[in-house]
């Protein structure tokens, strides 16, 4: 089985995000970038499938600027076999990404696509679902457990109020959630070896896809600053305020 893992280059999760002065987006100049944490979980799962003998090849694919190759290298250092880079500067939206991934899937013929459930920069949570729709494949979203057996995938999903287990026919798209695994640190020797693994470079046009955004960002603004805390006199007062002011209970 071949597993395809799309990986996105995003602002590092430790970075304090700053909104650009003109409200057109967030500051990304001189900001540390790294692999979307959910994608890291997807790569880890794919590599584990390979280590367990359930997968033969893990291919990482990224759509983004030249530096997205660094993100692919991270996946290669974790254990992916090779990379595909589709170079595109500027914003890409989930639908364009899903169309490009569809083209890659048709070319590569994987039986499983493992995506992060969402990217932490735009929190769209759409790409995996759109890809499943475009391909007409089965999908299992928000996976916290994944087993491959008898030509199918058993996916435990984190849903409101509990866990749901579903059985998918392969080929399938599975989007992964936080609790699926704890991604490894790429070892230093593997980081050095990753340099020698191949990355195929493409442009969106190679796949006949026009990635021009269809949505326009009107305005990006900072969340309102946090109000100072208050001290309550008693538990009763606390409960009262939680009910009436915070409206959380």
């Amino acid at each position: 089985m071949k597993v395809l893992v799309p990986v996105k280059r995003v602002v590092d999760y430790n970075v304090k995000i700053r909104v650009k002065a003109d409200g057109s987006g967030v500051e990304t100049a001189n900001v540390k970038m790294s692999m979307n944490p959910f994608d890291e979980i997807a790569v880890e799962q794919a590599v584990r499938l390979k280590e367990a003998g359930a997968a033969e090849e893990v291919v990482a694919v990224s759509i983004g600027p030249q530096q997205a190759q660094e993100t692919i290298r991270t996946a290669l250092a974790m254990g992916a076999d090779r990379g595909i880079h589709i170079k595109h500067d500027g914003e890409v939206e989930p639908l364009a990404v899903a169309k490009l991934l569809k083209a890659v899937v048709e070319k590569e013929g994987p039986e499983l696509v493992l995506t992060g459930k969402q990217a932490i920069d735009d929190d769209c949570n759409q790409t995996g679902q759109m890809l499943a729709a475009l391909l007409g494949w089965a999908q299992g979203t928000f996976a916290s457990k994944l087993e491959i057996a008898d030509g199918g995938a058993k996916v435990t999903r984190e849903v409101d109020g509990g866990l749901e287990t579903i059985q998918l026919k392969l080929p399938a798209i599975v989007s992964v959630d936080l609790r699926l695994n704890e991604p490894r640190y790429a070892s230093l020797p593997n980081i050095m070896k990753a340099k020698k693994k191949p990355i195929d470079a493409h442009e969106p046009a190679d796949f006949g896809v026009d990635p021009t955004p269809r949505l326009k960002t009107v305005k990006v603004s900072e969340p309102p600053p946090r109000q100072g805390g208050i001290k309550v006199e008693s538990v009763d007062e606390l409960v009262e305020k939680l009910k009436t002011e915070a409206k959380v209970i």
Partner: protein
Amino acid sequence: MALDTETLTHLIDTVRRFVDERLIPIEPRVEEENAIPPEIVREMRDLGLFGLSIPEAHGGLGLSMAEEVEIAFALGRASPCFRSLIGTNNGIGSQGIIIDGTSEQKTEWLPRLASGEVIGSFALTEPDVGSDAAAVALSARPEGDSYVLNGTKRYITNAPIAGLFTVMARTDPSVRGAKGVSAFLVPAGTPGLTVGKPDRKMGQRGTLTADVMFDDCRVPASAVIGGVAGRGFATAMKVLDRGRLHIAAICCAAASRLLDESLAYARERKQFGQPIAEFQLIQAMLAESRTELYAGTSMVRDAARKRDAGQAVTLESSCCKLFCSEMVGRVADRAVQIHGGAGYMADYPVERFYRDVRLFRLYEGTSQIQQLIIAREMLKET
């Protein structure tokens, strides 16, 4: 530099993240238990940290000195005990073999040192032999095709967990000083070799040092590094040359951690109605530390580059070791001062680092010995 910037950045980022996510959070437990938890040791092995300076052909990363110091800048932000665990394998415990070993010795030991399967210790110091290292007294009596070792080594880092000792011993008692000394590779468990109880130290808990005793300990002649007796002291000095740059880089890393802790505390702590960071006398201490740290990192990078370019850097290495170890002492002192009473309390990392960094001015040559080396090298030049 052998590595491209992207790969080096990736290496450094990975070590930084490991330090922040895995090592720093576990520091209080290591201090409490005087031991690094086995799962962390395993993770450090898996990461490849034991083989930074060991050539790729022997299973290591084969980093240049300039690359190694960048990794040290990242790793040394965590408690010095973590770097001590990997320090001997990358430095004094393996470099003797790398620099002067025979190809059999390299094949036998380097891959296991690089993976961390075997921990290497370096045994030079003795009860009566410290700064005057060439006075090594431990005797290695030739007997047929072997040598018989008798004597005691002192303060040997990682001795209780070591699988291999590089032992400096006198093979020729008729020759006083450096020329009569040879370096031996002695596996732990060799009959006649025993390790004493761990020393009770001021700091760097989590790293153990101990005496190593040799009582009619017989080793084959093939255990002499490089196969030729009488070259051990020269080997030891070459080993220390590289080690001093590594230690200097670790001092800078500790200073940067101390400075970050100080900055964070100074922003939080309020007196006279404002954060103490607003007081110019506090700012002066922070600025002083930052400036000295910058000087230290700059000189370490410069010396490392020179060494990679093939220049002899005995003088520069000693300058770096002297300046950076003294510098981190001053930075630690200011860090405690900025923390006030809290800096004297074990709840704050600066209390621990203050004790930990004191060692850097003592081992691998005291500050006085570095001064002597620097002066000697200058006088040689003129």
